[in-house]
């Protein structure tokens, strides 16, 4: 039986071939360019409300990437990311409202403020692990809306009323609507933030983060300064979420304490799990899920929208336990299998 044995030899030899990553990379790159091309023409094809929603998908994606760096890559749980989102949003809103800051310049300020706050919060949190860290961050999430409502801060925060911001126009007389311009602005920020996160996780720093997640004892023996990486990752994660919050404030034109409740933290966590823990592009799947699926659930049943949403999440977890990441992996594997034949 010469034919089958040859086939078998090929099958046995195949996993040892090291070049498997090369075609995947090419495929990867073309997928990225195709997605970007679609993202660039989309706002000219759809209605302005959908453009606005897509902008929010990107905003959520940035926040989810931040959460993924912390939870997915570094193994630290957080139920408090709504607080960082709120801080970013309020920093942006206050700067624009009180000192007439240009909207684009609020992003780095919001990011740095959140980095400092996240880093400082991460220091005591170093002593906490797993569910205990989740509880500590939960406390942060619960406290935030109330702190924003405090009367001594009302001059700055607007108290319960919040702050209303005006929507920016497209600069240089570009023939774009406000929604289209904000979409492109957000897209640019998203691309930069995604690229930086991608660089980070593929680097020596990223490996150290993952080593701490997988086995802290061994990581320390390899010379990794766990306290440093954990607190820096907390800061960077907060930075991402804060930039997302600032963008969200600009896009929605409004900040108010009750937009940033504990439920927002859970929304980000849902987006993280749906997209795939430890997979950066998953944030876009997750962002789209948490924005569109609750609306879809409401269109099925107004009274039971929460239940419908819940059932959808459970179904999704059963079908795709590793989120969109697992689905994409399975599809690429199948495609690659067909290419070989």
């Amino acid at each position, binding site marked *: 039986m010469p034919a089958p044995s040859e086939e078998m030899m090929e099958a046995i030899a195949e996993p040892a071939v090291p070049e498997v990553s090369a075609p995947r990379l090419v495929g990867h790159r073309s997928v990225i360019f195709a997605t970007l091309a679609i993202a660039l023409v989309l706002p000219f094809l759809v209605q302005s409300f959908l453009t606005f929603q897509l902008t929010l998908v990107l905003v959520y994606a940035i926040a989810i990437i931040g959460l993924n760096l912390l939870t997915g890559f570094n193994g630290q749980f957080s139920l408090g990311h709504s607080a960082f989102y709120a801080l970013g949003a309020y920093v942006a809103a206050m700067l624009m409202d009180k000192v007439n800051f240009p909207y684009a310049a609020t992003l780095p300020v919001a990011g740095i403020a959140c980095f400092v706050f996240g880093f400082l919060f991460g220091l005591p949190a170093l002593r906490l692990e797993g569910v205990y860290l989740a509880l500590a961050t939960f406390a942060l999430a619960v406290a935030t809306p109330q702190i924003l409502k405090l009367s001594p801060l009302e001059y700055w925060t607007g108290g319960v009323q919040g702050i209303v911001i005006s929507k920016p126009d497209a600069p240089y007389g570009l023939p774009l609507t406000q929604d289209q311009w904000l979409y492109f602005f957000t897209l640019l920020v998203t691309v930069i933030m995604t690229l930086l996160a991608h660089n980070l996780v593929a680097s020596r720093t990223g490996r150290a983060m993952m080593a701490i997640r997988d*086995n802290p004892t061994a990581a320390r023996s390899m010379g990794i300064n766990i306290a440093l990486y954990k607190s820096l990752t907390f800061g960077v994660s907060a930075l991402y979420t804060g930039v997302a919050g600032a963008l969200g404030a600009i896009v929605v034109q409004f900040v108010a304490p009750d937009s940033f409740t504990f439920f927002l933290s859970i929304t980000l966590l849902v987006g993280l799990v749906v997209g795939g823990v430890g997979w950066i592009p998953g944030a876009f799947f997750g962002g789209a899920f948490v924005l569109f699926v609750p609306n879809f659930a409401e269109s099925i049943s107004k009274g039971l929208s929460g239940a419908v949403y819940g059932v959808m999440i459970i179904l999704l977890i059963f079908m795709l336990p590793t989120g969109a990441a697992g689905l994409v992996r399975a599809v690429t594997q199948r495609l690659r299998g067909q290419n070989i034949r």
Partner: protein
Amino acid sequence: MRDVAVSFGGIVALDGVSFDLHPGLIAGLIGPNGAGKTTLFNCLSRYYTPSSGDILFDGSSILAKPPHQIAHLGIGRTFQNLALFRSLSVLDNVKIGGHCRSRSDYLSDALRLPWTGRTEASLDLRSREIVAYLGLDGVLDRRVADLPFGTQKRVELARALASSPRLLLLDEPACGLNHEEVGALSTSIRQIRDDLDVTILVVEHHMNLVMSISDRVIALNFGRKIAEGVPAQVQQDAQVISAYLGAGHA
């Protein structure tokens, strides 16, 4: 490397143990369960701080250093029950082993500054050399968790070598290996010593392995050193025999 003197006192696990390790030699650390071998290793890794005594490496105390700087000093180790980064590839595990021999920072890595590319390239090259040296090239990109136990043990060894240690601590390297794998292991341990000029301290229950590879053997029992010397000498030692076989045989 100069002599390493280890002495502890006051704690039950180790009771005033002292010995020197000579550069370039393989030393075996033996003793029944609970003799304090792993405790001693964990002191050398700075997981535990001895209540008294001092550990000198290259003439200076390691007790002043935090645990994550032990690798920088040149002390590398493997673990009794594997402690690999299970979700990562073999190559990534070995690269993490080289963490203390490379430099980068959070910001430069995120911005992928040109110099981080050079760091990464040299780390990549070195890691691949070590992987090839230990015959792991075939599983370079495989996830560690998917590999058989014996292979995972080799990955741990490769990871420890990536930190360019001058003192290599092997905690029961033969544990869980089959007969052939033990044979291959003793060859590689000696070869590593010869090729890389590294001092090796092995904790091991597998007597044949310890006695065949060690230049010196140190025997512990109940936290005390009961014998030290060349393998043949320690094997004949009455206290060692009684510790292993029970007092009646002494």
